[in-house]
């Protein structure tokens, strides 16, 4: 409750709380500045070899050069696009298949060991096969990315679906509903928080999958830049790509968080 005239103690409490938050924000920023300064300093003083370890200024210079010739936008754009495509497909397939598993006890019990096995299989092992089957192109990257995320997604959603309150399901039947009503009126609406928290995991996994794919089968994208950079020993390029990758993954995650807040009930 917001009082119109907060008491003195309340004001003090709020002031203290605000001060604490300001401190946290300041210290976070200082930590970053400190780490970057140490890195830069070590590079300048020759404590570390900046040809191998790069340095903040060298990374920035590389970034500015690539902004000038627009190539950085192409590479980042390709990676983001591939991630989003595979994310949409993972969520779509994940939902469809987990609903199918929920709808039939036999199907889910037959498929369960296969799903467990596929889920624990290291998906990077599939990448070379995918290249041979699908070719050196975006299809391989997207399939690799889907394979990383989709099995876990199906299993999480299916577990969530099967934990739906049986009394809520009984309620639907007692009101004369069918299995379809259970799905549309109880299962999906009650699973929205689960679906969204699962999306947060999946967007990260899709990015992992896309980078694995780009390591092997790409001539564009941040994963390609990292591999290319390491092969020609341009460590500035590698470090810069990793920094951009950090920022991209943070933005994608934030996107889902915003979506979560919008449909919160």
């Amino acid at each position, binding site marked *: 409750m917001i009082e119109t005239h907060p008491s003195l103690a309340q004001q003090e409490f709020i002031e203290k709380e605000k001060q604490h938050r300001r401190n946290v924000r300041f210290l976070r920023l200082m930590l970053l500045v400190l780490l970057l300064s140490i890195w830069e300093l070590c590079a300048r003083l020759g404590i570390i070899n900046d040809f191998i370890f790069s340095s903040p200024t060298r990374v920035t210079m590389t970034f500015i050069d690539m902004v000038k010739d627009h190539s950085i936008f192409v590479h980042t754009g390709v990676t983001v696009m591939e991630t989003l495509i595979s994310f949409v497909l993972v969520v779509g397939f994940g939902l469809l298949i987990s609903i199918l598993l929920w709808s039939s006890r036999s199907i889910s019990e037959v498929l369960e060991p296969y799903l467990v096995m596929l889920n624990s299989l290291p998906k990077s092992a599939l990448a070379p096969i995918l290249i041979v089957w699908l070719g050196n192109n975006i299809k391989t990257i997207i399939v690799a990315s889907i394979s990383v995320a989709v099995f876990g997604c199906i299993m999480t959603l299916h577990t969530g679906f099967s934990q739906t309150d049986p009394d809520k399901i*009984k309620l639907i039947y007692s009101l004369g509903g069918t299995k379809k009503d259970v799905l549309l009126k109880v299962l999906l609406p009650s699973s929205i928080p689960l679906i969204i928290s699962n999306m947060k995991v999946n967007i990260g996994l899709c990015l992992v999958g896309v980078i694995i794919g780009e390591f092997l089968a790409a001539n564009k994208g941040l994963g390609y830049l990292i591999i290319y950079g390491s092969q020609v020993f341009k460590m500035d390029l590698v470090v810069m790509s990793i920094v951009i990758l950090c920022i991209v993954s943070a933005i994608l995650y934030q996107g889902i968080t915003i979506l979560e807040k919008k449909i919160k009930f």
Partner: protein
Amino acid sequence: MKPKLEVRGVSYSYHSLEGETLALSDISFTAENGEFLAIVGPSGCGKSTLLSLLSGLLTPDTGEILIDGVSQAESFSNIGYMLQRDHLFEWRTIMGNAELGLEIQKKLDSTSKEKLHQMLLTYGLGNFEQAKPSELSGGMRQRAALVRTLALEPDLLLLDEPFSALDYQTRLSVCDDISSIIKSTHKTAILITHDLSEAISVADRVIVLTSRPGRMKAIVPVSFGDDYIRPLMRRNMPEFSVFFNQVWKELQNHD
């Protein structure tokens, strides 16, 4: 006149790989139109199973259940089922929750919406139509659940310990509240409870079941005179303890 509900020699067993469990054995009783029955029994006597059978969610192994003289499976009459908790959906408003049954049976139109609106108004939820269930008190939630059940105009109401999730004080007043609503709409109702005073305070007759497997133990008519008396008033009347002792004794003596 035919009784509203007639149960004849109903038995039901649960099956699992460990074996077969007889839950109900040879249950027979009738409920007249507008009558309020309470079923009491020790826990695990198959009370909830009985309601699932009456509502048609389960089919009896033997015996038959007749509603207005027609077998339950072929009967088209609506049966309202109130579960132990209100199960209002948090992602719907109170109006949305009340509409659920009509929506499922595809009976939702402007007339039925208007009627729902009136019902919510009558039961003191008029200002909460657009509220989320979490904004309501336990008693109001239970009333909203009752509106959801009554919206389908059931001929027969089944109440499966609908007050057991509430704290004692709320429970007394909600029980008072809901049983008055049911009485005023002249519905036939069957209440399951393990609370003897609750049973005696609302019912016209109390059916006592034995422990597993549930068998008919006794039917105790509870009469406080011809006029309807609210449950809270009944609890203060001298006859109350007489009936209480009578039902209590039936539950206690094992034969």
